[in-house]
């Protein structure tokens, strides 16, 4: 009991582990995770079994997959952007919003409103057209945040 619980308290007092996952995370977006292509009446039952998105890849004991990292830093920021792309595009256009705030946290920036303002000004270069792939969107956002030293996004390296 004590050994296990000691690990518990050490963890509770400790800080988040630094992310060691590689930058090139592939396919964390919702579109790439869908299970099959359930249509019509199956949707009615899927409403109760609730496996519309392939979260069966997120096992509890299998360790952190690339798409499950929320520790902060470049890789987790990238995963976040890919999955939250549609909501994030909206919030960036609005210069504020929940996804912008959480993005700022992952990137270690000090001021979420300043992040919102900067990304809003750069909307055109982040989303130049509708077909821009999500990893390119992530790349643009991350370099925009890095380049603006005033934002002090410490976890982007």
């Amino acid at each position, binding site marked *: 009991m004590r050994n296990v619980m000691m690990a518990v308290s050490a963890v509770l007092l400790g800080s988040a582990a630094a992310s060691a996952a590689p930058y090139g995370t592939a396919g964390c977006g919702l579109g790439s995770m*869908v299970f099959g292509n359930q249509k019509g009446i199956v949707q009615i*039952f899927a409403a109760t079994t609730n496996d519309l998105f392939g979260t069966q890849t997120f096992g509890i004991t299998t360790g952190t997959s690339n798409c499950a990292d929320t520790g902060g830093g470049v890789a987790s920021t990238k995963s976040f952007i890919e999955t939250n792309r*549609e909501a994030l595009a*909206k919030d960036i*256009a609005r210069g504020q919003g929940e996804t912008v705030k959480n993005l700022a946290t992952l990137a270690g920036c000090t001021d979420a409103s300043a992040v919102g303002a900067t990304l809003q000004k750069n909307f055109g270069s982040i989303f130049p057209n509708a077909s821009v792939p999500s990893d390119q969107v992530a790349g643009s956002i991350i370099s925009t945040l890095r380049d603006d030293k005033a934002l002090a996004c410490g976890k982007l390296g």
Partner: protein
Amino acid sequence: MPASPVAERVRRDLEVETLVAQARGLGLDRREEWLRLGHWRKRLFGGFQSEADGPDFFLAKNGKSDPAAELEATLRALYGQVQLTDEQRARKAVPPQCRFPARAAWLLGELRPASLPPLDCPRFDEYFQRLQAESVSLVFSSYYLNNPASIFGHTFLRIRKHSEDVPADKRELLDSGIDFSATPDTGNPLFYAFKGLTGMFPGVFHLFPYYYKVREYNDYESRDVWEYELALTPKQLAMLEAHLFELGSTWFDYFYIDENCSYQILAALEAADPDLKLLEHVKLPVVPADTVKALYRNPGLVAGVRYRPSARTQFRARVEGMDRAARNAVEALADNPDAPLPEAGRVRILDAAADLIDVRYAKELPFQPDGKGGTIKRRVLERRADIHQPSPELVVPPPLDRRPDFTHGSSRAFAAWGGSDAAGPMVSIGYRFALHDLVDAPAGYPELSQIEFLTPELRYYARSKSLQLESFDLVNVLSLQPATAFDPALSWLVRAGLRRLRDGACNACLAGAAQLGSGFTLATAGEALALFAFGVAEVDTAPSLAGIAGAPAVRGGVGPLGGLRLRLGGSLVAMGEADWLWFPYAIEHTSWSVSTSLRLSPSQSWSVGVTGRREPAASEGLLQLFGYF
């Protein structure tokens, strides 16, 4: 004092024997804590059976049915006496010593051995560190439009991450979500339904960033989300986390009706502490809203309730109070992103248009960001971003009359008194397995969705002293979707079951009847008044039915169906419906019916009403009393 490895081994083995004997003496295998950790349930004729179905959950050969053997095996594993098989090693199963941290915590806490076994469990440590748990919430995702099955809802857990320096609102999406869901292996609707009902899909617990669920439920499915924050002590929270890790090593056969998502979430929560009384407050069918109500049967367990509006709810909040010109501009933008904008209120209009596009193209956008919806959206957002101002925060007050814990009970029984002109006075009793009709108490349910399963009604007629089955619906679904300027939605209905035909085609015979219909609904702003008009097709069959000339026992017909529903206040609902059917080639060509109902629900547990019905061969009226449980 340092000892040789052999002596150490011997000492360990002796220790285990002592602990096993001690555990037996204390009767630990019969304790509530142990039974909950193993998900063992008492069997009807004695003994136990665990609900867990994956073999890795049991270290003893007969662990699934023998809690005592499993307890002994767990102790032995903690002291290194149980090893991974080659097959388990190949698929990277968690080593037996490390697979059950909650069991270990409880057992060692009860037995208090002089020294602890060495435990090096990196996967558990990593998991625990990833969670950084501060508190846990039970999350309920509500219904979504035009899918009455979704009014059953869905529950999962949210584990809030601890953070010293980042305020909560800036890291909510980064919390962890844990859910239990089935892994279907078929897309065929019939197999899907059959397998889901009979436990032929395995259900597994998953762990993922909370934002996946927010995007899936709030955005993709446009469901409102309610979060019930639980007041667990640090010890209860740690036990819950440890137990969830244990559940990661197994699966449970998924049964829609009882061992479903919401059931397993409660079962997992119960393992955190024997004082939590959750499963004893749910019954068949296990409906997610009932599992939320079970939380409230534990005083002080729910610390608070939070609301997260769906994309559709957010859109509605944005257009609330907009004048006609602004609404038109929003609608125009959703089709043509370069549509002209009025001078004033551009930010508000562009924000609303972006939400409308998201709602309209919700199913397309994650897969095709460059599809029609994605292209329109990007241009609208570009125009918005050109205005270098942050949008004001959208505040949507939680709609308290939509909370799942305020719903009436999922099952219903009724007694009624009345009479018909054809058969005289009668008494009627009936039951409904699940869930809700359009005149039941509206709180917590979508205003205009009805879904019922298994509704037998029995009648006793005084004049003929006969007891007979009046009807038995297998399924009765009515989905009314008000057509609006923004969304010309289709309404539909499905009914199938047994009922008595009173239109002259037979003498009040009991017939199998199936009806399918589709049409449109118009409703006032608050949906208090709704009018609907459908085209329906019906097939009836009964041995004594004077049906189609060539096949007397069957008839098929089509016709219009229309109705009105009016809700007055929060607890009084009136509804009227009329239909007319034309049965070509049938001996009795037409049929019609008109029915009305009025029901008052003074509380969530009972209601009283009157109902009347006229058909070609009979008219009847009844005074009804309903109980919900």
